[in-house]
C-alpha cells in the first residue's frame, strides 16, 4: 500500500481547493450553451449516450413507482429529477472502475449494466442485494448513511496497493454529509491520497429536513479544503456540466492526483419514498420551480436545437426504455422461488452447528406444515 501522504499544498494557494461561488454549468435551463473556461463541453457522442441514459432512467423511475403502487416493490426511493447525476456518475467511469451507490442510486447502478430486475431485488424483498458486485463493479446499494464512503476509500486503497489504476466513485446525499463517517471517509482518502471521487447529490432534502438544517456552510463543497482536497460545485441538472466536472475528477484520481469532493445541486422531485408524504414539509411551488429545471428536458432542448435529436430518435429511445420497463415489470410480477434455507447460508462461510440446529428446526416446521410458503404448522 502506497502510504504517501500528501502534505499541505506547498507553494500552491490553499484557496485553490475552494469550489466556485456559482456551480459549474455548461447548458442552461433553456438548453443554451454557457461557455466555461475551465470545463469543456463533452462531445456529441457522450451527450447522446447521456440523453439515452436520462430517458431510460426516467422510465425506470416511473416504472418502479408504479410497481410500488401495485405492491410488487416494498418501497422505492426515486431519483426523479436527479437522473442527470445518476447517468453522469456511471458514464464517467471506466469498465474497471467501481461505483459505491446508495439506496437512491438504482438508476446509476442500472446504467452501469446491472439488470433492473437484479437492482430491485432489495426493494422487492427477495434478498438484501440482487447482483454480483464484481460483475459490473458496483458495490451493494447501501442504506446506513455515509458508511459506504469508507468502503469506497478502503476499496481504492486496496487497488492502489496492487498498483491498479481503478477509480472509485462514491455517492451520498446532502444529509449524509452530516454523519461522522462522511468526515472520516474524506479524511482517510485525502491523507492516503486515494483515487476516490466523492459525489454528493445535494437534492435539498434529507427526507423532510432541508439543507439549511444540515449545514451552515457556504456550500457542501466547501468542506473539501478542510481535508486538503479540491471541492467543486456543479449544476446537478446539467448532465454536460456533470460529465465535465466528474470526468475531470476521475482523471485526476486516475493520474495520482488524489480525491475530489463534488457537490451537485439538484432536487428530489418526489417524496423521499412512496412511504413519505412531502406535502408535510415543502411547498408545491418550490417543487414546481424545480420542474422547470428538469435535466431531461434541458438536454433534449439542447440536442434538438443542435440538430442532434429528432423525433425518430426520440421514438427509438422511448421504445428502448419501454422494453426495459416491460422487462422489469415481468421480472417483478414473477414470484421468485425462495428457499428458506438461504437464511442460514452465508451467515458464515461454514455453517455453525447452532445454525444447523436452527435450520433443522425450521425445516421440520415447514415439513409439518406441508408447505414452504406457510411459516406455521398448526
Amino acid at each position, binding site marked *: 500500500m502506497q502510504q504517501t501522504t500528501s502534505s499541505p499544498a506547498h507553494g500552491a494557494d490553499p484557496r485553490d481547493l475552494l469550489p466556485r461561488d456559482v456551480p459549474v454549468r455548461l447548458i442552461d435551463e433553456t438548453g443554451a450553451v454557457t461557455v466555461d473556461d475551465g470545463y469543456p463541453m463533452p462531445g456529441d457522442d457522450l451527450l447522446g449516450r447521456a440523453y439515452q441514459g436520462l430517458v431510460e432512467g426516467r422510465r425506470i423511475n416511473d416504472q418502479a413507482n408504479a410497481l410500488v403502487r401495485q405492491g410488487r416493490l*416494498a*418501497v422505492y426511493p426515486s431519483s426523479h429529477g436527479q437522473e442527470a447525476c445518476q447517468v453522469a456518475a456511471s458514464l464517467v467511469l471506466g469498465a474497471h472502475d467501481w461505483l459505491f451507490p446508495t439506496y437512491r442510486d438504482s438508476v446509476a447502478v442500472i446504467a452501469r449494466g446491472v439488470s433492473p430486475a437484479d437492482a430491485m431485488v432489495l426493494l422487492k*424483498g427477495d434478498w438484501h442485494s440482487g447482483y454480483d458486485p464484481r460483475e459490473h463493479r458496483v458495490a451493494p446499494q447501501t442504506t446506513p448513511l455515509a458508511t459506504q464512503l469508507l468502503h469506497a476509500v478502503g476499496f481504492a486503497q486496496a487497488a492502489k496497493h496492487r498498483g491498479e489504476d481503478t477509480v472509485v466513485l462514491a455517492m451520498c446525499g446532502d444529509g449524509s454529509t452530516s454523519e461522522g463517517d462522511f468526515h472520516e471517509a474524506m479524511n482517510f482518502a485525502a491523507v492516503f491520497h486515494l483515487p476516490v471521487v466523492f459525489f454528493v447529490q445535494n437534492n435539498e432534502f434529507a427526507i423532510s*429536513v432541508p439543507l439549511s438544517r444540515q449545514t451552515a456552510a457556504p456550500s457542501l463543497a466547501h468542506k473539501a479544503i478542510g481535508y486538503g482536497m479540491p471541492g467543486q460545485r456543479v449544476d446537478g441538472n446539467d448532465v454536460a456540466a456533470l460529465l465535465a466536472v466528474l470526468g475531470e475528477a476521475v482523471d485526476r484520481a486516475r493520474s495520482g492526483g488524489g480525491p475530489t469532493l463534488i457537490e451537485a445541486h439538484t432536487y428530489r422531485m418526489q417524496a423521499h419514498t412512496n412511504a413519505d408524504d412531502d406535502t408535510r414539509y415543502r411547498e408545491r411551488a418550490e417543487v414546481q420551480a424545480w420542474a422547470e429545471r428538469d435535466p431531461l428536458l434541458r438536454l433534449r432542448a439542447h440536442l434538438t436545437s443542435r440538430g442532434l435529436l429528432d423525433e425518430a430518435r426520440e421514438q427509438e429511445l422511448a421504445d428502448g426504455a419501454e422494453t426495459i420497463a416491460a422487462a422489469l415489470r415481468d421480472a417483478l410480477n414473477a414470484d421468485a422461488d425462495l428457499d428458506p434455507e438461504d437464511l442460514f447460508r452465508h*451467515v458464515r462461510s461454514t455453517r455453525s452447528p447452532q445454525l444447523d440446529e436452527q435450520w433443522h428446526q*425450521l425445516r421440520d*416446521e415447514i415439513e409439518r406444515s406441508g408447505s414452504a410458503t406457510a411459516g406455521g404448522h398448526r
Partner: protein
Amino acid sequence: MTIAHDDVRVDTPAPTTQTMTMAAALNRALADAIEADPEVVVFGEDVGALGGVFRITDGLTARYGEDRCFDTPLAESGIVGTAVGMAMNGMRPVVEMQFDAFALPAFEQVVSHVAKMGNRTRGALALPMVIRIPTGGGIGGVEHHCDSSEAYYAHTPGLTVLCPSTPQDAYSLLRAAIASPDPVVFLEPKKLYWTRGEVDTSLVAEIGSARVVREGTDVTLLSYGSSVATCLEAAEIAASEGRSVQVVDVRSLSPIDDATITAAVRSTGRAVVVAEAPGYVSVASEIQSRVFERCFEYLEAPVRRVTGFDTPYAPPKFEHWYLPDADRVLDAIDSLHFEDER
C-alpha cells in the same frame, strides 16, 4: 371511545381513558411531558414538520414550537451526544433514532457517556434523558429496518431499558422514562405502532416491574414487546387444547423484575422465553438463565426459548420463516415434559 390518531388533543383537559393506537399513545405521552415540564425537549431526524417517519412526534413542533421539538442534522452520535450535554445542563432531552440500526452510530456516546456519566460524577451529572428507538421487525422492512438491538443496551450497566407491548404501557412507561432521573433506552416495537388499546393517561408505570398479562397454571411464557401478542395468541390456542398458559410481559428489560418472573415460573414449574431478537447472548437467554437459577428446584422441565434465528434479520419475503410465531411457541410448550404426554 375510539379516536383517530389526529384527534389527540392536549389543549383542553381530555378524558382520562381513551382508545388509541400505540403511536398515538406515544405522541400523547410526549405532548403531556412537554406540557408538564419546561425542560423536556424532543429532537431527532424528521421529528419536526414531518412528525417522524412513524408520526410519533406528529404535531409537536406545530403546537409547542421549534423550541420544544426540532429537527437536527443527520447524525446520530450528534443527536445523542448533544442530548448528553443538554441533560448535563438541566434539560430532559427525548431523542428519536429513526430505526434500531441507525442508532448504532451513537453507540459510543451511549455506552461511554449516557450509561456512565452519572456513575463517573457520583450522581452530580446523572442524565435524565430518553433515547427512543423504533425496534424489531414484522413490518416487511428492507435490510437495516427490522433489527432488534435490546441486548446491546440491556448488557450495558447504567442504562434503563424499557419496551412496551400495549398502548397503555407505551404511554405510562414513556412518561415514567421521561420523569426518570436516569437515562432510558426506550424501545418501541414498530409492529405494534398501529395496534389499538385503552389508555388511561393518569397512569405512570413503575420502571423495573413486569406485568402478568394472562393468568395460567401449566406453563409461564415470558416475553416483551411484539412477542407478547405472539404469546397471548399461543396461550389462546393452548387453552383450546386444555393447557392453561400464563403470560408475563417483562417490559422492563433493565432493571428486570426478578420477583414477578420468579414467582410466576415457580407457580407453573415450566417456562418458555419468547423474543424476536437473535437468541444468542440475548435478553431472552438472560431471562432463561435467571429463571433456571432462581427456580431450579421448581422446574419440571428445562426452560425453553423461542427467539429469532442467529442470522442477520431476514429479507421481507423471508420474514415469516424468521419470526417466532404462536406455532413455534406451542412447539416449545409441547417440549416441556408434560405428564399427560409422557
